[in-house]
């Protein structure tokens, strides 16, 4: 009996916290169909807010921000993945001391507070007169994305059996073939998750973009545009619609990736037991 009550209390606690965490998100989605900014259904259930994404005076700006977000994230994550993967192979083969130093510097963008990284890059760009605009933004995004790629590729190299690569060389493969046909496929899960991480981090970034975009260029990503548009007058109905769409995409992506991961782990555990 006591155990039952305890279990019930524990579950209720978990549920209450979860409810608070999700309340704003759920309300947002519900009221995205109301075309209102202050949570009422005075105009009834409608899709006006979703239509406004395409047909309002703010649509051109909104779509240019969405375009910029994807452009910067694509370029930055591809460059970060390439550079990070090769860097990991290099770092893996460095001597112990130099490896430690490089790994520590690699940690820095991760542990550093975003605002400090943002202003330090800004001072750097101003001091060396980098042209304002995409160049600054893409360099900045590469700088904070690549460390995550390195962190996800290095462990894969560590757990790789070095004999496989040696065997390829002994069997007559030249180092390049051995790299492309043997090493890269083995570490590819790390490369892929590094790429996904870099892409998400870049799309999600606000602080570094906001401080490095330059006022005169007029370049906005989705997050800086939300900030400039909603800071003063609050959220217009179309933002509710946009947020709901983003939400559904993000939740679906993260959930499916993780569920696949967990079911794979379970399968492995089962095979190990059998």
């Amino acid at each position, binding site marked *: 009996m006591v155990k039952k009550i305890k279990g019930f209390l524990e579950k209720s606690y978990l549920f209450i916290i979860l409810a608070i965490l999700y309340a704003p998100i759920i309300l947002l989605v519900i009221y995205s169909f109301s075309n209102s900014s202050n949570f009422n259904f005075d105009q009834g259930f409608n899709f006006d807010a979703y239509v406004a994404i395409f047909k309002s005076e703010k649509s051109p700006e909104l779509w240019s921000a969405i375009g910029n977000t994807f452009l910067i994230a694509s370029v930055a994550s591809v460059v970060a993945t390439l550079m990070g993967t090769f860097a990991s*192979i290099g770092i893996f083969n460095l001597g112990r001391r130099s490896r430690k130093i490089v790994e520590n510097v690699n940690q820095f963008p991760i542990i550093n507070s975003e605002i400090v990284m943002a202003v330090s890059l800004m001072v750097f760009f101003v001091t060396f007169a980098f042209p304002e605009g995409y160049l600054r933004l893409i360099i900045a995004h590469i700088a904070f994305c690549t460390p995550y790629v390195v962190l996800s590729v290095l462990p894969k190299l560590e757990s790789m059996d070095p004999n496989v690569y040696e065997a390829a060389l002994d069997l007559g493969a030249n180092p390049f073939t051995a790299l492309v046909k043997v090493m890269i496929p083995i570490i590819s899960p790390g490369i892929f998750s590094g790429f996904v991480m870099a892409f998400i981090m870049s799309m999600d970034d606000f602080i570094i973009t906001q401080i490095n975009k330059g006022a005169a260029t007029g370049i906005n990503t989705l997050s800086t545009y939300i900030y400039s548009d909603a800071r003063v007058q609050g959220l217009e109905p179309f933002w509710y619609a946009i947020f709901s769409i983003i*939400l559904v995409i993000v939740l679906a992506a993260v959930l499916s990736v993780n569920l696949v991961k967990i079911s794979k782990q379970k399968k492995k555990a089962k095979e190990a037991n059998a």
Partner: protein
Amino acid sequence: MKESIRKKFRLTKKAFSVPYILFLLLFVVVPLVLILVNAFLDSDNNLTFENFKTFFTSSSSLIVLGNSLLVGVITTVICLLIGYPVAYILSKMSSGKILVLLYVLPMFINFLIRTLATKAIFIAMGVELGMGTVLFGMVYNYLPFMIMPLHTTISSIDKSYIEAAQDLGADRATVFLKTTLPLSVSGIMSGITMVFIPTISTYAISQLLSNGKIFLFGDSIQLSFEQGLYGVGSIMSLVMLAFVLISNLIMNKFNKNGDAVRRSLW
């Protein structure tokens, strides 16, 4: 011949890291050095210590720093008090590994979206924006960063310690205080760092949720650079950096696998 190619390739493989090392030097190390240099320069680029004096004697900047630390401490404590039971209960459940995902998911939605949504709800409910709403926003934003490392640590505790304590006659409270709690210290330390540092350096959340009434350290760093006060801004950045480094030292001391926890976030 073959041997020489192999040796050569060993060398060239090391060379793969050169572009990235140069990139790190140029775009991570040099910018931080520039911040350090700017801290000692006045607006005409002369060597000076005025910036230190300006920052450490101005009551307004010290008040902002004090406020940020206060908000940081309160947020961290609330996150720990709410998050620890969540992580603890989840670790006892067989489906805890999947359920914990639900608590971390909101983290993947841009913080501006979540903050603006809570702000809109507060306004619709007629709640006055101020310290209370700022604290709610901070806890709401950073709670997942507390739950994640705690859950990782608590669920990896060897159950036989707990059983041994029970077998030796300890009551429930004693078992928790003498086994689970001490064994989860590394998770607590990671959680504290991952909540405290972003909270004190956050930019925009406090302004949005207090209608600009509450101004935190991250906001004032941004503002000084926006106003062209590079010297004072650099000092503030250095202060922030000091907090980052100290908290990381502490975390590494308690947690040899600090990276593992960070990585498992993804």
